């Protein structure tokens, strides 16, 4: 599945000042990418991701999905929404059914699937997010904890079996354990289910660890679009944009500043430990 944005600009209708939420965006997203989308609040991330499945139509420019221009009048958006799943920010606010089962089944039922197929998908989706099907299917989503509600909401999107999964700040407000589970889920979906994933997040650790491409936005424009290693080596610029560096990168850079010649393009804890101890051993030998 290929998603292309060509010269996409967007101004919200009710924006009296007429500021461009997106300015002349050009982007290509292909299969098997794990994209981290970062930028300060109001930089246009949410607007951009909603554009990718036709929830917002651009003021100008075109969004092309598998060669079909979805900005044209007569396109079936249902087909696109099946292929591109979008998990909104605070997705638990969209729960509405009496049972967890009913809520997760909402998407598949809208696709017109048979009830057996729906059940299979609900089962699979709940297991994916780590909720036991038998235990949770008949419970009311409103009596669950915040973290469990979010899992149900994410399952609701997974049950549509999208090829591309977009998540808008999915870890906001989760506890460390919940964040860890989410990271594992995304890793699993990417590695084992072959999904393309677009993750919007403010947590640079997540972005650095998971993604193989990082897009940095500011004021409605794409300022960087590159590998995590390259993007996070632009330390000054990243700070200027009001963003954090991943903690590991931060430490490696500081060590570097103190004269320890460690590599700074490392994003996993184990590798960082390895690198630092290697370097320390090396320097103690001299």
């Amino acid at each position, binding site marked *: 599945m290929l998603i292309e944005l060509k010269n996409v600009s967007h101004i919200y209708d009710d924006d009296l000042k007429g500021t461009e939420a997106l300015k002349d965006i050009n982007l290509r997203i292909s299969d098997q990418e794990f994209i981290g989308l970062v930028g300060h609040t109001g930089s246009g991330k949410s607007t951009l991701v909603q554009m990718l499945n036709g929830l917002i139509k651009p003021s100008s420019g075109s969004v092309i999905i598998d060669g079909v221009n979805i900005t044209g009048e007569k396109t079936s958006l249902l087909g696109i929404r099946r292929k591109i799943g979008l998990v909104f920010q605070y*997705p638990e606010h*969209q729960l509405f059914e009496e049972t967890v089962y009913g809520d997760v089944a*909402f998407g598949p039922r*809208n696709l017109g699937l048979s009830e057996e197929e729906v059940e299979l998908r609900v089962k699979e989706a709940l297991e994916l997010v780590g909720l036991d099907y038998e235990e949770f299917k008949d419970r009311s989503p409103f009596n669950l904890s915040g973290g469990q509600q979010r899992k149900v909401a994410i399952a609701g999107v997974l049950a549509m079996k999208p090829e591309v999964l977009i998540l808008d700040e999915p870890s906001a407000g989760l506890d460390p354990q919940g964040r860890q589970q989410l990271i594992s889920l995304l890793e699993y979906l990417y590695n084992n289910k072959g999904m393309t994933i677009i993750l919007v997040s403010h947590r640079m650790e997540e972005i650095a660890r998971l993604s193989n491409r990082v897009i940095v936005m500011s004021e409605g424009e794409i300022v960087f679009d590159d590998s995590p290693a390259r993007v996070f080596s632009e330390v000054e610029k990243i700070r200027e944009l009001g963003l954090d560096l991943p903690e590991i990168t931060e430490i490696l850079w500081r060590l570097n500043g103190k004269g320890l010649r460690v590599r700074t393009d490392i994003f996993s804890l184990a590798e960082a430990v390895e690198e630092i101890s290697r370097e320390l051993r090396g320097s103690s030998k001299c």
Partner: protein
Amino acid sequence: MLRNITIGQYMARDSIIHNMDPRIKIVITIMMITALFFIDSFSGYGLFFLSVLVIISLSRIPLLRIIKGLRPVLFLVMLTLILHVFFTRGGEVIWQWGFISIEAEGLYTGFFMVTRIVLLIIFTSLLTLTTSPLELTDGIEYLLSPLKRVGVPASELAMMMTIALRFIPTLLEEADKIMKAQMARGADFESGNIVKRARNLIPLLVPLFISAFRRADDLALAMESRCYHGGEGRTRLYELKVKGTDFAALGVALLLCMVFIYF
């Protein structure tokens, strides 16, 4: 989508009319509208229309905006006109076709009523166009405060109105978000017959109500923790003050009302 429904139609401008005291504006509006019902000739309407024009030009609200504001009542206006024209009897028969006829009396009453409705709408919309919702509630609270003696909870009513006004845009935004989230799961809000459409609204309405209750809860808690305990003894940040222009406007309005009522 839903966000561009504007609530209240306040248009911020720096004009004499905007800067008037909301209480005076409300009183003048009530006076003028009452007087409107005493007008019994088109020349009276002419004078009323003239004063409306003066207010509009003083308020710096574009005329087009006011005309647009009439669109929602177009149906009512047309209906009134048609009913009167075809069904009010009396006077010279102007046009006849079978049993349908248009008579002079009907034509006259029809246009008379329509003029009244249009002037009524324009005048009240001038109030809401030039007075922000908050000023309006403030004004209403003051005007109702004499009724506190007989047990009307004026401050509470005003607080309720203020809160409602404050939260309408928030709820619309929320509705927009939920709607999009459900559309991302393949929900369809735009097609099907009425029954189907109403049923399709459940995934929107349930989360919306839940969020409204949650917000109400949070707000109550926040107000309580800041020691809100009703209107008793509360002072305000901006005191309303009646100025010279307000008295002048009130004087002119009184004069006009006399003219409308006695001539």
